[in-house]
């Protein structure tokens, strides 16, 4: 065991740190006013391109895929250094973190060759078209159907909560190709062109007021069989590849979400009616709890990545990340607002730390749901890690069309 950089890691860190200092200077502080959508997209692409040109994209991806072929430790080191800057990266998190790894694991060779490079270069944005109105936690219950027609498939149905669909060029979609098979067996995945005829993404407004997710309608959308991911009927297996990567890609604390350091900075400015906030035990205890949660998850993820570096597959243990991170964000934000008393509730003229905490109180409610709810992740931990028996699933082995009709 060694928590310090190896000499090789240290060299890589110094190089990355120098490159960031030279290229990310304007992102040293958070933007004074939030970017408009256009500005966010423009800056996200520009940042991805700059990294790509300098060899800091696809760090762990095989060189044959245009990656750097380096170890997960290199990827961690770069992420750590990059997180010192407020660079816009979230536009590519889902595509590069989840969709493209699924594409190059299950896609046909010329399709892989076509799509991986432009995504890595920041030229094309991807989204994950899994959830539907009647199937979120129960992903295998999706109804969007794909029917073979010559060399094509024709897709009809609706997806929902699709993050960045309105900004995306391509998506990976789970469809039902055999409604008479049991729910997990009749699924097939495809790559779909988000600009193609019959695809319509309509942004949905979130509780927070922003509009990052969408409902997406598919009407007679044609997809070539070459854009199938995995075998017909193997969609569940392919989707699990995506979900395994999701645990790594979105499991941790969103970059720049407020954490214990924000709480400390805020508490240092507050005088309560029983003395300075930093002298109160409940405040100090809450800072400690935030540190333990945030840093504990970072350490857990590093353990997983170092296992990955030794050729092991990250297991369902990663499911603890988001359960801890999202609820910690919510509780910590509520506590920080409480500490500000009535001032914590006013958004007009709120100082930047407080404004981020107010935003975090809203966003955390979504994070506890996105990418597997707190409850589903607990089920995964209980069932797949600890080996406890699963819930009874009355519809699991029934033909899908029989269980839906029932």
């Amino acid at each position, binding site marked *: 065991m060694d928590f310090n950089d190896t000499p090789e890691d240290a060299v890589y860190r110094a190089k990355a740190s120098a490159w960031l200092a030279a290229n990310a200077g304007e992102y040293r502080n958070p933007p004074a006013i939030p970017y408009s959508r256009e500005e966010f997209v423009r800056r996200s692409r520009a940042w991805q391109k700059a990294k790509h040109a300098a060899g800091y994209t696809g760090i762990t991806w095989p060189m044959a895929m245009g990656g750097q072929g380096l170890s997960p430790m290199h990827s961690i080191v770069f992420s750590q250094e990059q997180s010192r800057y407020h660079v816009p990266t979230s536009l590519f998190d889902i595509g590069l973190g989840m969709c493209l790894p699924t594409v190059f694991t299950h896609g046909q060779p010329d399709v892989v060759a076509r799509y991986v490079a432009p995504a890595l270069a920041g030229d094309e944005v991807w989204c994950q078209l899994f959830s539907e109105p009647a199937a979120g936690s129960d992903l295998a*219950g999706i109804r969007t159907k794909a029917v073979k027609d010559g060399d094509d498939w024709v897709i009809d149905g609706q997806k929902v909560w699709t993050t960045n669909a309105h900004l995306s060029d391509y998506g990976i979609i789970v469809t039902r190709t055999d409604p008479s098979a049991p729910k997990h067996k009749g699924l097939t995945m495809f790559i779909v062109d988000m600009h193609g005829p019959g695809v319509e993404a309509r942004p949905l407004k979130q509780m927070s007021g922003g509009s990052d997710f969408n409902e997406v309608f598919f009407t007679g959308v044609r997809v070539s069989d070459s854009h199938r991911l995995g075998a017909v009927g193997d969609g569940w297996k392919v989707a699990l590849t995506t979900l395994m990567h999701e645990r790594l890609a979105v499991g941790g604390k969103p970059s720049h979400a407020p954490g214990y350091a924000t709480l400390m900075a805020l508490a240092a400015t507050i005088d309560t009616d029983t003395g300075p906030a930093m002298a109160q035990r409940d405040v100090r205890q809450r800072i400690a709890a935030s540190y333990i949660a945030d840093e504990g998850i970072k350490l857990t993820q590093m353990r997983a990545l170092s296992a990955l570096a030794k050729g092991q597959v990250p297991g369902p243990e990663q499911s603890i990340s988001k359960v801890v991170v999202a609820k910690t964000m919510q509780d910590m934000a509520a506590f920080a607002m409480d500490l500000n008393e009535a001032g914590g*509730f006013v958004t007009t003229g709120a100082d930047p730390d407080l404004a981020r905490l107010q935003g975090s109180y809203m966003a955390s409610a979504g994070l506890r749901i996105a990418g597997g709810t707190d*409850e589903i992740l607990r089920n995964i931990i209980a069932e797949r890690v600890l080996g406890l028996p699963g819930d009874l699933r009355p519809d699991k082995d029934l033909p899908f069309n029989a269980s839906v009709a029932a």
Partner: protein
Amino acid sequence: MDFDFSDDAKALREQARKFLDERSGPKVARTVMDGGDATPLWREVVDLGWPAARVPEANGGVGMSSEAACVLAEETGRSLAPVPLIQSLMATEALLLLGTAAQQARWLPGIADGSIIAVTGWAEGGAASPAVAHARVSGDTMRGSKSPVADAAAAHLAVLSATGSNGTQLYLVDLTGPGVAVTPVATLDLVRPHSALTLADASADPLGTPDGYHDWLDRAAVLSAFEALGTATAAMDMAVAYAKERVAFGQKIGRYQGVKHKCADMFIKLELARGHALHAAWAMEAGAPELRQAAAAARVASLEALAFCAEENVQIHGGIGYTWDSDCQFYYRRNRALVAGLGSRTFWSERLVRSLEQRNAAAA
């Protein structure tokens, strides 16, 4: 012992629930969030005599017990009614408890007949608790600022905390008088309007004493506890209804203990809070010495229940709960308004324990 409201209060509660079920609720909250005007609803509430419920008959009111104010606060909370009723009831309690006959005669008739909207305010934008006021009164004028103050934009009278020669206490400030500026402030609650009051030598009429201010805080805490109970109950009802209807993995999600136990925990927290709130309502009406601790316990327990119900209601709804179009957001946001309205759980927990210490010292 009778751990329930009087028949009069129960009858008023039924009337309020029936009316507000019909005329208020999340749909109406949404129209107000979108810029709609709720003054017609307020006029109807005035016509029903609710702001007059606590005002003595001699001052043009109905002269009901403080239980009436509690049930009205609960039903207003449940229905998210976008009217300044709770503020008006809190200001009325201040006048009843601390006002001279002249002050009562000056303001209560207008409150009762709806010609005067009265609000209360202690906050000053920053991190201070209700125990502290930087607004100062010297002579008979006030300087300082108060923010956020709920429902102040339409109000005529404000009952404000400020520090004068005797310490921190309440003052009556005529908002239509000179030296008062009322400007809207944005908050996390997009339905209930809030304002900042800037007081530049505004005329301020002392209401009671510094001790009296704390006695009023107890009463305000009881009303706010009932409001929180109402709001939390509505969030729980919404969550339970959805858990009975939404299907995942071929079954109602309410069948899963992850969901079922969460609903049960909502109920547990609410019942604990309700016990404390009823105890406090009794102490308030009876003038019992337990009021200080009972009010603080009711406030802490009800905020705890509300935060849990509001947060987990979103969670039980899944993706749909996180949308703008879902009603979950009203409870999630109002939860923060109620914390800000009268001070955090930390403040009230401290006050609870201090009152227990004082009781123990007195008994020793």
